[in-house]
Protein backbone atom coordinates (compact mmCIF):
# COMPACT_ATOMS: atom_id res chain seq x y z
CA UNK A 1 0.00 0.00 0.00
CA UNK A 2 1.16 3.49 -0.81
CA UNK A 3 1.94 5.73 2.15
CA UNK A 4 0.70 9.26 1.64
CA UNK A 5 -0.31 11.47 4.55
CA UNK A 6 -0.53 15.09 5.61
CA UNK A 7 3.14 15.36 6.66
CA UNK A 8 4.10 14.28 3.15
CA UNK A 9 2.48 17.35 1.61
CA UNK A 10 4.52 20.55 1.77
CA UNK A 11 2.75 23.63 0.42
CA UNK A 12 4.22 26.96 -0.66
CA UNK A 13 7.75 26.11 0.29
CA UNK A 14 10.48 28.61 -0.41
CA UNK A 15 13.32 26.80 -2.09
CA UNK A 16 15.92 28.31 -4.35
CA UNK A 17 17.01 25.13 -6.08
CA UNK A 18 15.79 21.67 -7.03
CA UNK A 19 18.13 19.89 -4.65
CA UNK A 20 16.59 21.66 -1.65
CA UNK A 21 13.11 20.46 -2.62
CA UNK A 22 14.30 16.89 -3.09
CA UNK A 23 16.10 16.99 0.27
CA UNK A 24 13.06 18.37 2.05
CA UNK A 25 10.72 15.70 0.68
CA UNK A 26 13.25 12.93 1.30
CA UNK A 27 13.65 14.11 4.91
CA UNK A 28 9.91 14.00 5.44
CA UNK A 29 9.81 10.45 4.06
CA UNK A 30 12.76 9.44 6.20
CA UNK A 31 11.17 10.94 9.34
CA UNK A 32 8.42 8.34 8.94
CA UNK A 33 10.87 5.52 8.31
CA UNK A 34 9.65 5.10 4.73
CA UNK A 35 13.05 5.60 3.08
CA UNK A 36 16.67 5.38 4.09
CA UNK A 37 18.60 8.39 5.36
CA UNK A 38 20.45 8.77 2.07
CA UNK A 39 17.39 8.64 -0.17
CA UNK A 40 17.60 12.37 -0.86
CA UNK A 41 21.24 12.08 -1.90
CA UNK A 42 20.44 9.04 -4.05
CA UNK A 43 17.55 10.83 -5.71
CA UNK A 44 19.63 13.94 -6.38
CA UNK A 45 22.42 11.85 -7.90
CA UNK A 46 19.91 10.20 -10.17
CA UNK A 47 18.32 13.54 -11.02
CA UNK A 48 21.66 14.84 -12.27
CA UNK A 49 22.09 11.82 -14.53
CA UNK A 50 18.48 11.30 -15.54
CA UNK A 51 16.47 14.46 -14.97
CA UNK A 52 12.75 14.29 -14.23
CA UNK A 53 11.42 17.75 -15.07
CA UNK A 54 8.25 17.52 -17.18
CA UNK A 55 6.96 20.25 -19.51
CA UNK A 56 3.35 20.07 -18.33
CA UNK A 57 0.84 22.87 -18.78
CA UNK A 58 0.18 25.51 -17.56
CA UNK A 59 3.35 25.15 -15.47
CA UNK A 60 6.06 22.52 -15.29
CA UNK A 61 6.35 19.80 -12.69
CA UNK A 62 9.04 17.34 -11.63
CA UNK A 63 8.82 13.67 -10.77
CA UNK A 64 12.06 12.84 -8.93
CA UNK A 65 12.79 9.33 -7.71
CA UNK A 66 15.65 6.96 -7.12
CA UNK A 67 15.93 3.21 -7.45
CA UNK A 68 14.00 0.87 -5.21
CA UNK A 69 17.01 0.51 -2.96
CA UNK A 70 16.51 2.77 -0.01
CA UNK A 71 12.74 2.50 -0.10
CA UNK A 72 11.31 0.64 2.90
CA UNK A 73 7.70 1.27 1.99
CA UNK A 74 6.37 2.82 -1.19
CA UNK A 75 5.31 6.39 -0.54
CA UNK A 76 4.39 9.64 -2.23
CA UNK A 77 5.52 13.10 -1.12
CA UNK A 78 4.40 16.29 -2.81
CA UNK A 79 5.61 19.88 -2.66
CA UNK A 80 4.26 23.08 -4.13
CA UNK A 81 6.75 25.90 -4.50
CA UNK A 82 6.30 29.57 -3.78
CA UNK A 83 8.76 30.43 -6.56
CA UNK A 84 9.67 28.16 -9.43
CA UNK A 85 12.90 26.17 -9.22
CA UNK A 86 14.78 24.77 -12.18
CA UNK A 87 14.79 21.12 -13.11
CA UNK A 88 16.18 19.75 -16.34
CA UNK A 89 13.70 18.35 -18.84
CA UNK A 90 13.46 14.55 -18.84
CA UNK A 91 12.94 14.58 -22.59
CA UNK A 92 15.83 16.94 -23.25
CA UNK A 93 18.46 17.33 -20.51
CA UNK A 94 19.77 20.50 -22.15
CA UNK A 95 16.56 22.33 -21.40
CA UNK A 96 15.73 24.03 -18.07
CA UNK A 97 12.16 23.96 -16.83
CA UNK A 98 10.62 26.26 -14.21
CA UNK A 99 8.89 23.85 -11.87
CA UNK A 100 6.11 24.70 -9.42
CA UNK A 101 4.98 21.25 -8.26
CA UNK A 102 7.14 18.29 -7.28
CA UNK A 103 5.90 14.71 -6.93
CA UNK A 104 8.38 12.37 -5.30
CA UNK A 105 7.26 8.77 -5.68
CA UNK A 106 9.51 6.53 -3.62
CA UNK A 107 8.63 3.24 -5.18
CA UNK A 108 9.68 -0.19 -4.01
CA UNK A 109 8.10 -2.01 -6.91
CA UNK A 110 6.59 -0.32 -9.98
CA UNK A 111 4.20 -3.22 -10.62
CA UNK A 112 2.76 -2.79 -7.16
CA UNK A 113 2.08 0.91 -7.76
CA UNK A 114 0.86 0.54 -11.32
CA UNK A 115 -2.58 2.00 -10.58
CA UNK A 116 -1.08 5.03 -8.86
CA UNK A 117 1.37 5.57 -11.71
CA UNK A 118 -1.51 5.38 -14.16
CA UNK A 119 -3.53 7.93 -12.22
CA UNK A 120 -0.54 10.24 -11.86
CA UNK A 121 -0.09 10.20 -15.63
CA UNK A 122 -3.75 11.11 -16.05
CA UNK A 123 -3.32 14.01 -13.64
CA UNK A 124 -0.14 15.28 -15.32
CA UNK A 125 -1.99 15.54 -18.63
CA UNK A 126 -4.74 17.84 -17.31
CA UNK A 127 -3.83 21.52 -16.78
CA UNK A 128 -6.98 22.21 -14.76
CA UNK A 129 -6.06 19.47 -12.30
CA UNK A 130 -2.56 20.82 -11.79
CA UNK A 131 -4.03 24.27 -11.14
CA UNK A 132 -6.59 22.77 -8.76
CA UNK A 133 -3.87 21.05 -6.76
CA UNK A 134 -1.68 24.12 -6.66
CA UNK A 135 -4.54 26.27 -5.39
CA UNK A 136 -5.31 24.13 -2.32
CA UNK A 137 -4.55 26.27 0.70
CA UNK A 138 -3.79 23.65 3.34
CA UNK A 139 -1.85 20.39 3.32
CA UNK A 140 -4.96 18.63 4.58
CA UNK A 141 -7.00 19.87 1.61
CA UNK A 142 -4.28 19.04 -0.87
CA UNK A 143 -3.93 15.57 0.61
CA UNK A 144 -7.66 14.84 0.48
CA UNK A 145 -7.90 16.15 -3.06
CA UNK A 146 -4.92 14.15 -4.29
CA UNK A 147 -5.98 10.95 -2.54
CA UNK A 148 -9.28 11.20 -4.35
CA UNK A 149 -7.68 11.96 -7.74
CA UNK A 150 -5.25 9.07 -7.34
CA UNK A 151 -8.01 6.83 -6.00
CA UNK A 152 -6.03 5.99 -2.93
CA UNK A 153 -9.06 5.71 -0.65
CA UNK A 154 -8.87 6.41 3.06
CA UNK A 155 -7.56 3.11 4.39
CA UNK A 156 -6.88 0.85 1.48
CA UNK A 157 -10.52 0.87 0.37
CA UNK A 158 -9.35 2.43 -2.87
CA UNK A 159 -8.35 -0.88 -4.39
CA UNK A 160 -11.83 -2.02 -5.37
CA UNK A 161 -12.63 1.38 -6.80
CA UNK A 162 -9.45 1.18 -8.84
CA UNK A 163 -10.32 -2.08 -10.46
CA UNK A 164 -13.58 -0.52 -11.58
CA UNK A 165 -12.34 2.76 -12.93
CA UNK A 166 -8.57 3.02 -12.93
CA UNK A 167 -7.92 2.05 -16.49
CA UNK A 168 -6.53 4.50 -18.95
CA UNK A 169 -8.27 5.51 -22.12
CA UNK A 170 -10.55 2.46 -22.13
Amino acid sequence: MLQFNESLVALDIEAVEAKAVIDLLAERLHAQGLVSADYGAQTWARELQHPTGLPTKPFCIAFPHADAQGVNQSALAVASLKHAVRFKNMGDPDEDLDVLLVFMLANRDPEEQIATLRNLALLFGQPEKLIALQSRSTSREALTWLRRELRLGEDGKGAAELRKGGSLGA
Partner: protein
Amino acid sequence: MAKLIAVVCGAGINTSTIAEDQIREKVEREGLRDVEVKRILYPDIERFIGMMTVVVSMTKIFRTDLGAPTVQGMPFLIGTKEEKEALLDKIIQMVKAA
Protein backbone atom coordinates in the same frame (compact mmCIF):
# COMPACT_ATOMS: atom_id res chain seq x y z
CA MET B 1 9.81 -14.00 -34.58
CA ALA B 2 7.97 -12.04 -31.93
CA LYS B 3 7.91 -8.29 -32.29
CA LEU B 4 9.35 -6.19 -29.53
CA ILE B 5 8.19 -2.76 -28.40
CA ALA B 6 11.04 -1.41 -26.28
CA VAL B 7 10.28 1.28 -23.72
CA VAL B 8 13.59 2.95 -23.01
CA CYS B 9 14.34 5.23 -20.12
CA GLY B 10 17.23 6.46 -18.05
CA ALA B 11 17.22 4.50 -14.85
CA GLY B 12 13.60 3.67 -15.00
CA ILE B 13 11.32 2.55 -12.34
CA ASN B 14 8.34 4.88 -12.56
CA THR B 15 8.45 6.59 -15.92
CA SER B 16 8.90 3.60 -18.20
CA THR B 17 6.33 1.63 -16.22
CA ILE B 18 3.72 4.28 -17.01
CA ALA B 19 4.37 3.93 -20.74
CA GLU B 20 4.74 0.15 -20.68
CA ASP B 21 1.40 -0.23 -18.93
CA GLN B 22 -0.50 1.86 -21.48
CA ILE B 23 1.15 0.16 -24.45
CA ARG B 24 0.59 -3.33 -23.07
CA GLU B 25 -3.08 -2.56 -22.47
CA LYS B 26 -3.43 -1.28 -26.04
CA VAL B 27 -1.68 -4.34 -27.49
CA GLU B 28 -4.16 -6.53 -25.60
CA ARG B 29 -7.12 -4.41 -26.69
CA GLU B 30 -5.97 -4.74 -30.31
CA GLY B 31 -5.67 -8.49 -29.87
CA LEU B 32 -2.12 -8.51 -31.25
CA ARG B 33 -0.24 -11.72 -30.70
CA ASP B 34 3.49 -12.23 -30.55
CA VAL B 35 4.11 -8.65 -29.50
CA GLU B 36 6.22 -8.17 -26.42
CA VAL B 37 6.41 -4.89 -24.50
CA LYS B 38 9.55 -4.53 -22.46
CA ARG B 39 11.22 -1.85 -20.32
CA ILE B 40 14.85 -1.41 -21.22
CA LEU B 41 17.38 0.79 -19.49
CA TYR B 42 19.19 3.07 -21.87
CA PRO B 43 22.62 1.79 -20.77
CA ASP B 44 21.50 -1.78 -21.65
CA ILE B 45 20.13 -0.97 -25.09
CA GLU B 46 23.15 -2.35 -26.96
CA ARG B 47 22.07 -5.92 -26.24
CA PHE B 48 18.70 -5.37 -27.89
CA ILE B 49 19.82 -3.89 -31.19
CA GLY B 50 18.39 -5.97 -34.00
CA MET B 51 15.61 -7.34 -31.78
CA MET B 52 13.51 -4.20 -31.37
CA THR B 53 10.56 -3.43 -33.66
CA VAL B 54 9.77 0.02 -32.24
CA VAL B 55 11.65 2.04 -29.65
CA VAL B 56 9.56 4.24 -27.37
CA SER B 57 11.91 6.64 -25.67
CA MET B 58 11.18 8.39 -22.39
CA THR B 59 14.52 10.14 -22.50
CA LYS B 60 16.54 11.79 -25.22
CA ILE B 61 18.24 9.24 -27.39
CA PHE B 62 21.51 10.42 -28.81
CA ARG B 63 22.12 7.58 -31.24
CA THR B 64 20.68 6.61 -34.58
CA ASP B 65 21.95 3.04 -34.91
CA LEU B 66 19.16 1.27 -33.03
CA GLY B 67 17.87 -0.48 -36.12
CA ALA B 68 14.27 0.41 -35.29
CA PRO B 69 12.12 3.50 -35.61
CA THR B 70 12.02 5.62 -32.46
CA VAL B 71 9.09 7.58 -31.06
CA GLN B 72 9.17 10.03 -28.18
CA GLY B 73 7.14 8.57 -25.29
CA MET B 74 6.67 11.73 -23.23
CA PRO B 75 2.93 12.03 -24.04
CA PHE B 76 2.36 8.86 -22.01
CA LEU B 77 3.42 10.84 -18.99
CA ILE B 78 2.06 14.31 -19.64
CA GLY B 79 -0.21 14.14 -22.67
CA THR B 80 -3.97 14.51 -22.72
CA LYS B 81 -6.08 11.38 -23.10
CA GLU B 82 -6.35 12.14 -26.81
CA GLU B 83 -2.60 12.59 -27.20
CA LYS B 84 -1.97 9.33 -25.37
CA GLU B 85 -4.42 7.47 -27.58
CA ALA B 86 -2.97 9.01 -30.76
CA LEU B 87 0.51 7.91 -29.80
CA LEU B 88 -0.73 4.40 -29.02
CA ASP B 89 -2.37 4.22 -32.45
CA LYS B 90 0.86 5.37 -34.09
CA ILE B 91 2.91 2.71 -32.28
CA ILE B 92 0.43 -0.04 -33.18
CA GLN B 93 0.55 1.03 -36.84
CA MET B 94 4.33 0.89 -36.78
CA VAL B 95 4.27 -2.58 -35.26
CA LYS B 96 1.74 -3.83 -37.78
CA ALA B 97 3.76 -2.37 -40.65
CA ALA B 98 7.03 -3.92 -39.49
